[in-house]
């Protein structure tokens, strides 16, 4: 069980959250071209180690949080609000 320290609600079980994927991808400018949009929508680093990702606290405050989690050990290093920097 992952224990996620929601910045708004405190420590909560992972059951209260939905995973929403890699938080490092950024939407390109509207005319950035097909390659840029391919990278945004489909291509992923898929790191073995630290991964910055979105989780949606759907059964709590209903906000999105940005989590830094290790994909090998499942350790969670930081949990931040969506507009805060992860580092």
């Amino acid at each position, binding site marked *: *069980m*992952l224990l996620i320290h929601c910045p708004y609600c405190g420590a909560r*079980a*992972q*059951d209260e959250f939905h*995973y929403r*994927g*890699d938080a490092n991808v950024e939407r390109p400018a509207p005319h950035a071209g*097909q390659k840029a949009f*391919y*990278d945004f*929508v*489909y*291509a*992923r*680093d*898929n790191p*073995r180690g630290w*991964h910055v*990702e979105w989780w949606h606290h759907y059964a709590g405050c209903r906000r999105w949080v940005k989590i830094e*989690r290790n*994909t*090998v*050990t*499942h350790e969670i290093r930081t949990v931040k609000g969506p507009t805060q920097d992860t580092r």
Partner: protein
Amino acid sequence: MPARHEPIFDRYSVWRLLKESIDGNRGWKQAWRKPEPKARYDVVIVGGGGHGLATAHYLASVHGITNVAVVEKGPIGLGNSGRNTTIVRSNYLLPSNIRFYEYSLRLWEGLERELNYNVMMSQRGQLSLFHSASERDAAVRRGNSMLIQGVDAVLLDREAVRAMLPFIAMDNPMFPILGGLLQPRGGTARHDAVVWGFARAANRRGVDILEHCEVTGIRCESGRVVGLETTRGFIGAGKVGIAVAGNTSQLAAMAGLRLPIETHLLQAFVSEAIKPLIGCVINFGAGHFYISQSDKGGLVFGGALDGYNSYSQHGNLPLVEHLMSAGVSMVPALSRLRVLRQWAGMMDMTMDGSPFICRTSIEGLYLNGGWCYGGFKATPGAGWCFAYTIAKNEPHPLNADLTIDRFFEGRMIDEAGVGPKPWAQ
């Protein structure tokens, strides 16, 4: 057809078994050699699981390319090949998938003769239950799609399901069972035996299986692959095929490629052994839960992904609870059983839920990956198509659609239709 170099007394047969039982079993030989790496091979396959070994076998047996090595970071067959739930089927919806998986199923049907190895192929049937009118419509559509492609599919009504599975809870208040779609030719096979069978067959035709040989780099010169840096030294290669599902992103990154893949966890479970109870593979349509019974008597079951990127190879408890409750909803007797083992494998989840068997942007580098949770049943078909693609430097019509470029071209093979969310495929 026995391989050219194979002495007839090395074949496995009932006569051989009798002879060895009289001679005290002293004549059995190692099923494959443990050679030292050569300086260069025509083709090097990275990944000694079922797919990599099958590829090597078909390169040698179909295309006559025998200067081949399979490199594996650990012992062979201990990745996803040893972690799946052994189910074999071809009940897909989209034509590209049906054609490929049906070809694979046909190879399964002749695999024991082809390999001279008992892979315990058992076509006991695969039944997907439905619980609502709309699920029934989807099952009919899928069944028709299969029939059009020449695959067997039978729609069972409620009474037929009840007669086939008397132990099942038909009248669960939330998920009553209205019927099911049966593929009679689906079933199970022994996963380890498939790996060993392909390893032995490839070895007999001269393929080098290099265990404990981890790839640490892919060396390219002017856009062309020239070899692999490994923990056992540099190995030169005319062509390199990647078949390392779970770690595909890492391998591809060594060649500078960034793929539409995320790695996720899928758990599986085995119960204590009981007398024969479940005679086919059952898929519960109201959650994501499927179950079959191994020949040893244990019930083998699994379900959905844990749902977040992970390489940990061990699952988490929320999904265990979800799976157990789905299982008990379908077969209440499961609540009396104890779970003996639980484990998880790493799934290459792609952005549309379909795999890759294709060339890459680097000359001489080929990719087999993105198997989501469909890799085991694909083993012979993927090996066959991957060998073709490597040998001819172009895809076979069976895998022509399974490219990375399909995402650029808007030709996704989205069996589930859920959009680019790997954790939802």
